[in-house]
């Protein structure tokens, strides 16, 4: 991001020393390669052809996973099988016996920082016991079953659209059904033979043993899972990824075959192809998967050795070692002879089988298969010159694909290619046609698709699309960027980006390289969308400057050869992470520092939160992200501020009370923030006694301001995180607030007042904090008005997060208590980055208009984030300043520079590439209605604060009216009375209506000011997937969950009921309906709901006996109960924070909340969907 700010602190990381180890790892990867290719391809197709099946939310991701399976299955049927199967067993021994383990270990040593980092994170994320750390691939067993489930979706899609390669087509359909069961078995079989420990060791070592000393150690690439650190809540995605891995592993046997073949080919000819060939790691894919693919792609492109990359990601991450995929691969390729030797040596057994049988046939197929439909000549511009030659040679990437299909494909290669190309084109056209299909809104009643909605596809060439950043991370409201501002204005759609930059990822290539290649003018990081003019120069895709390729970059460790800069992982993946050198540090990386500020006034003690909080801290004490330097401190406050001396050596914690709140000072500066490990016992003692210390307090005042000032003084030297727990309005000292809410105005339809902060104290405080790299997270637990609008400022501008638990009470509100507990756990153990800055760069001609989210904007494109957490999203409004006529693509790059909790400086770079179009129709075709809704929501929040709520509401309605009338004017021969929308925007009016009825923007319904403001804060910081749920909840009927279509996660089958429209007419008294609103779920039980469901799922004999305030599904030992609870917990697991489940009957207090969320219905104060459409139509025809 920022350029080298200041130099000199901390030793730069050194790759060179490590490089050798990386090489050793090679072998692993090699086997995997082919699979990867397969995956990508399948995946891509799935996405492409049957968008419906794709997934936005994690659960669906499996589909992509499933795809790979297909091929796997196929293989069994194919002639190759024998070889493959035989290969596996053979491999085992070699691996096990391989001495390299030793070699491997040392590598760990080289990267002291990384190793510890990765390992813990992994274990936490996956929830898999220790062995996961040793070897990822194999630890996945549990997850294995997962793909079965996923499978369903992919399969269907596949069947619909026969894959381009003939073999695939033939095989797939037949296998479709059996797959779920059969697949599992093979996979496991292959895995189990390897004991977890052995596998890792053996794999890495084998290469090492055979390897000669690496020539170019400089660059090491590792993909680390460490990034995934996600807390438990995210288990879902992880599972998925895990399940994916096994596939590869299974497939791994195949690669062996491929590798030898690759060797035979001319190693260097291929380079250009790689880009095109790299199978689509479809943007859709969950990141984890995505990365995996990419890596694999690389592998593919670089003949055999590259396969190592794929493994890298898996193994290395988990193993915690930097495996330089690149380096490892390099060894193989560059030294073919050695490679032979390698095989001979380490792979002896396997080698024969692979080479002998498959070898002859394989080489060709590889070439032929590679294109797989989309690989046709539309190469990235950069590669084109190279590509031409390479293609003729035969795309190397093809090898990646599994041998099976290749056999068949070989003879028809050219035909296949051609047909595939055609298919690609037609798809694109079809897609566009579909997106532009006119939908008559007033006539089509059921416009809500039963499956989750995906982001639309751009017009990008398939090759680029494959490389593109995952839509979960980086999304644009318009997938096709209009050429000029005029065109944008014509379309009347907002242009903006939605980012979730620090999302927990399961696979992320981590690159350790002494020079991070960037454009010399605009400082853009090299990315997959740059063009290489020749071997020595690359052209920046943002500013078009021609840069030299540094010597180090010329060496491609993946292929172990010079002159293939375009195959480096940096240019193969749109999301990468660099380990930054000291150039990127202003000061040496600081330790993780956590300060907890507790409100202990009477009100707080009454609510009983302190007990829960301390308990949670005790439980998660060891899981706090950090290293040996981690520091922690506590402050409590009522009308005075209390400090706790926890200096090591004390027999018990000392409480120091400062009562001079006008001029707060720190009593003993050195001993208040203490090392987490050194003072462990003292801290634990304190946490145990803290809840009891204030039980008899009579103090009702709250001196939050002074406490914050004290906290700031404690933290300013190091930066870190302040967690503030507040339960009432701050009443004395600086920053005191007055109650501004008039309860009688809660349901007014007139303007809502006091959405803006009452004082600038908290804003200034936040800015001070931000300047010192301190972030403030606010937990507001309160029954009364606490002026969220003012207090939230402390988090808003310091890049913190806000949590709100209205009516929190430890006895009276058990649902909130549970949520608080779970959220707190996630909060404490989630990944964290310190001293972060994020810069967003975009192609010349575009500029950033406004940022939304929690941060401080330091300069036009630079966000200063004192902390970055995996749960916060950002939104950026863009404008087009200059015409983009002379470019066909635009790119956005978000680079997040942060210090990990282990004290490592890292840069995470996401690059998004989108096509430029010159017709309004194309703009509409690429409109991403969900992203647009979220962007409008954030804009509306700004509007309501700066202007008024009614202004904001009007603006939202106008947004729909404008865009629909603009669309109307682009289509001819329409009757005046018809309200049409392009298919891509058909949900736009519905979403906007939902937004108008959302807590943040609704009028006429009683809404507490704090809740409204909190909802607004959430709009600004929630990533798209979560935000969409709070805007437009999903409604499912769950009293009779179907088995068909269910997916399998872990060992559980998760039913997938269709999403229903949010209308009471869809409810029936005989059913039970689950409404998923993100942070809350309502389970509505119809009056005549089958007693079967009530007794088996809820555990009550009949409808009448269900208690009113039930908030949990009991774990009953019935099929129905298990199915239901697995569905509910699957939904819950897909989000970081707990969703409270309310079971709602017609007479329960939550009933109103449930029915308010049925947004298509009319309420006293708001229009029904149909009326809203009429209103829009009226506005349009005016």
């Amino acid at each position, binding site marked *: 991001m920022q350029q080298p700010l200041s130099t000199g602190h901390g030793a730069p990381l050194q790759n060179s020393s490590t490089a050798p180890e990386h090489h050793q790892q090679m072998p692993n990867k090699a086997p995997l390669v082919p699979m990867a290719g397969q995956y990508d391809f399948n995946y891509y197709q799935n996405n492409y052809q049957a968008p419906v099946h794709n997934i936005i939310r994690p659960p669906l991701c499996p589909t992509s996973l499933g795809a790979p399976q297909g091929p796997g299955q196929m293989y069994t049927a194919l002639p190759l099988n024998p070889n493959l199967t035989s290969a596996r067993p053979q491999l085992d021994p070699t691996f096990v016996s391989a001495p390299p383990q030793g070699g491997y270990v040392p590598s760990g040593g080289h990267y002291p920082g990384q190793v510890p980092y990765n390992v813990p994170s992994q274990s936490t994320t996956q929830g898999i016991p220790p062995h996961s750390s040793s070897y990822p691939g194999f630890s996945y067993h549990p997850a294995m079953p997962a793909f079965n489930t996923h499978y369903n979706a992919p399969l269907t899609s596949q069947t619909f659209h026969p894959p381009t390669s003939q073999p695939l087509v033939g095989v797939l359909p037949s296998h479709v059904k059996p797959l779920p069961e059969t697949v599992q078995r093979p996979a496991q079989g292959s895995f189990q033979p390897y004991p977890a420990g052995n596998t890792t060791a053996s794999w890495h070592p084998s290469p090492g043993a055979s390897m000669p000393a690496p020539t170019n150690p400089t660059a090491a690439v590792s993909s680390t899972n460490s990034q995934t650190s996600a807390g438990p809540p995210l288990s879902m995605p992880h599972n998925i990824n895990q399940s994916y891995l096994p596939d590869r592993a299974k497939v791994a046997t195949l690669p062996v075959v491929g590798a030898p073949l690759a060797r035979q080919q001319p190693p260097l000819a291929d380079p250009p192809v790689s880009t095109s060939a790299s199978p689509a790691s479809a943007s859709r894919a969950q990141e984890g998967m995505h990365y995996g693919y990419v890596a694999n792609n690389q592998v593919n492109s670089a003949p055999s050795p590259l396969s190592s990359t794929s493994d890298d990601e898996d193994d290395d991450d988990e193993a915690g070692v930097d495996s330089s995929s690149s380096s490892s691969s390099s060894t193989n390729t560059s030294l073919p002879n050695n490679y032979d030797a390698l095989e001979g040596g380490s792979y002896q057994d396997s080698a024969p089988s692979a080479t002998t049988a498959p070898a002859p046939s394989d080489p060709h197929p590889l070439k032929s298969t590679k294109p797989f439909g989309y690989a046709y000549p539309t190469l990235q511009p950069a590669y084109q010159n190279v590509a031409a030659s390479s293609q003729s040679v035969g795309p190397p990437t093809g090898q990646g694909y599994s041998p099976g299909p290749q056999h068949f494909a070989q003879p028809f290669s050219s035909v296949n290619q051609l047909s595939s190309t055609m298919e690609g084109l037609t798809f694109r056209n079809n897609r566009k046609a579909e997106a532009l299909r006119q939908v008559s809104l007033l006539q089509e009643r059921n416009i809500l698709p039963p499956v989750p909605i995906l982001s639309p596809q751009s017009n990008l060439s398939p090759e680029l699309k494959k490389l593109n950043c995952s839509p979960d991370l980086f999304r644009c409201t318009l997938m096709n960027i209009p050429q000029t501002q005029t065109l944008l204005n014509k379309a009347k759609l907002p242009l903006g980006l939605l980012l979730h930059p620090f999302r927990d990822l399961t696979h992320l290539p981590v690159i350790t390289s002494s020079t991070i290649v960037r454009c010399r003018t605009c400082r853009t990081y090299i990315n997959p969308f740059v063009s290489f003019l020749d071997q020595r120069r690359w052209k920046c895709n943002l500013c078009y400057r021609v840069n030299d390729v540094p010597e180090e970059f010329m060496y491609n460790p993946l292929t172990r050869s010079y002159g293939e800069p375009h195959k480096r992982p940096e240019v193969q993946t749109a999301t990468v992470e660099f380990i930054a050198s000291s150039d990127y540090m202003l000061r040496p990386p600081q330790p993780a520092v956590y300060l907890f500020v507790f409100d202990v006034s009477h009100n707080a003690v009454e609510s009983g939160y302190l007990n829960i909080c301390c308990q949670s801290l005790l439980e998660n004490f060891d899981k706090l992200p950090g290293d040996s330097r981690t520091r922690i401190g506590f402050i409590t406050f009522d009308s005075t501020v209390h400090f706790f001396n926890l200096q090591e050596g004390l027999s018990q914690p000392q409480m120091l009370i400062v009562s001079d709140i006008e001029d707060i000072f720190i009593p003993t500066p050195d001993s208040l923030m203490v090392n987490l490990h050194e003072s462990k016992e003292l801290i634990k003692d304190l946490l145990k006694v803290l809840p009891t210390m204030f039980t008899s307090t009579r103090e009702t005042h709250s001196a939050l301001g002074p406490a914050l000032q004290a906290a700031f003084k404690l933290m300013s030297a190091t930066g870190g995180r302040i967690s503030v727990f507040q339960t009432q309005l701050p009443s004395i000292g600086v920053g005191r607030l007055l109650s501004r809410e008039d309860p009688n105005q809660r349901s007014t339809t007139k303007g809502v007042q006091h959405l*803006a*902060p*009452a*004082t*600038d104290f908290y*804003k*200034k405080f936040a*800015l001070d904090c931000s*300047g010192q790299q301190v972030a403030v997270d606010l937990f507001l637990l309160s029954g009364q008005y606490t002026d969220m*609008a*003012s207090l939230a*400022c402390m988090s808003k*501008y310091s890049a913190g997060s806000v949590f709100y638990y209205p009516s929190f009470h430890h006895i009276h509100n058990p649902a909130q208590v549970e949520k608080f507990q779970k959220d707190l756990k996630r909060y404490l153990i989630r990944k964290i980055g310190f001293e972060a800055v994020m810069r967003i760069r975009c192609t010349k001609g575009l500029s950033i*208009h*406004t*940022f939304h989210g929690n941060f*401080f*904007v*330091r*300069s*036009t494109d*630079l966000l200063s984030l004192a902390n970055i957490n995996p749960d916060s999203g950002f939104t950026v409004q863009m404008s087009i300043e200059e015409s983009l006529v002379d470019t066909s693509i635009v790119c956005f790059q978000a680079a997040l520079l942060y210090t990990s909790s282990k004290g490592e400086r890292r840069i995470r770079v996401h690059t998004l590439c989108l096509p430029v179009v010159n017709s309004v129709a194309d703009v509409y075709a690429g409109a991403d209605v969900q992203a647009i809704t979220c962007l409008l929501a954030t804009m509306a929040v*700004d509007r309501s604060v*700066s202007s008024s709520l009614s202004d904001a509401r009007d603006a939202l309605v106008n947004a729909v009216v404008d865009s629909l009338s603009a669309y109307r004017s682009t289509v001819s021969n329409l009757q005046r009375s018809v309200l049409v929308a392009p298919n891509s925007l058909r949900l736009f009016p519905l979403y906007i209506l939902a937004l108008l009825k959302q807590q943040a923007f609704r009028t006429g319904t009683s809404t507490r000011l704090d809740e409204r403001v909190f909802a607004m804060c959430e709009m600004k910081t929630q990533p798209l997937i979560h935000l969409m749920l709070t805007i437009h909840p999903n409604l499912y009927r769950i009293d009779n969950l179907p088995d068909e279509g269910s997916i399998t996660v872990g060992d559980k089958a998760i039913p997938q009921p269709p999403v229903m429209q949010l209308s009471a007419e869809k409810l029936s008294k005989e059913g039970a309906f689950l409404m998923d609103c993100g942070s809350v779920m309502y389970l509505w039980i119809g009056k005549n709901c089958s007693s079967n469901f009530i007794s088996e799922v809820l555990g009550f004999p009949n409808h009448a006996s269900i208690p009113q305030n039930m908030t949990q599904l009991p774990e009953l030992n019935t099929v129905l109960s298990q199915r239901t609870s697995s569905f509910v917990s699957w939904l819950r697991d897909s989000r970081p924070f707990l969703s409270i489940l309310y079971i709602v009957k017609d007479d329960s207090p939550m009933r109103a909340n449930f029915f308010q969320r049925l947004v298509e219905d009319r309420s006293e104060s708001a229009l029904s969907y149909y009326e809203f459409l009429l209103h829009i139509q009226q506005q349009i025809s005016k």
Partner: protein
Amino acid sequence: MEALVFILSLVDCCTLIFMAVYFIITLSDLECDYINARACCSKLNKWIVPELVALGFVTLLMLVSMHWFIFLLNLPITAWNIYRYLAVPCGNVGVFDPTEIHNRGQLKTHMKEAMIKLGFHLLCFFIYLYSMILALIND
């Protein structure tokens, strides 16, 4: 007397011109990322009140000395400044708020405003100069 009024307003006008230039320089520094938003805003906010006072002084002076044309010329810009000062929401740090200055093209708006003011003050400068000379000659 007449001359004294114009000499005073000339001096005042010079200060305003310097101030406007200072605003422009600081804002363009921010635009070029030479200083950060916080520093920029705290620098500029410091001068909001002095600017207001200086403007008000000239306006009042003209009113008192019954130079209606110049008074009316100054009135809108003074009113605008007062309005802008009073319209700052209580949650904001000042007229220039570091958290918002980069949003919604605010920076450009501020820049434009500073430019216009500079032009206006230059115009005033020459008017005062002319009037002063005229007054001196008449004396």
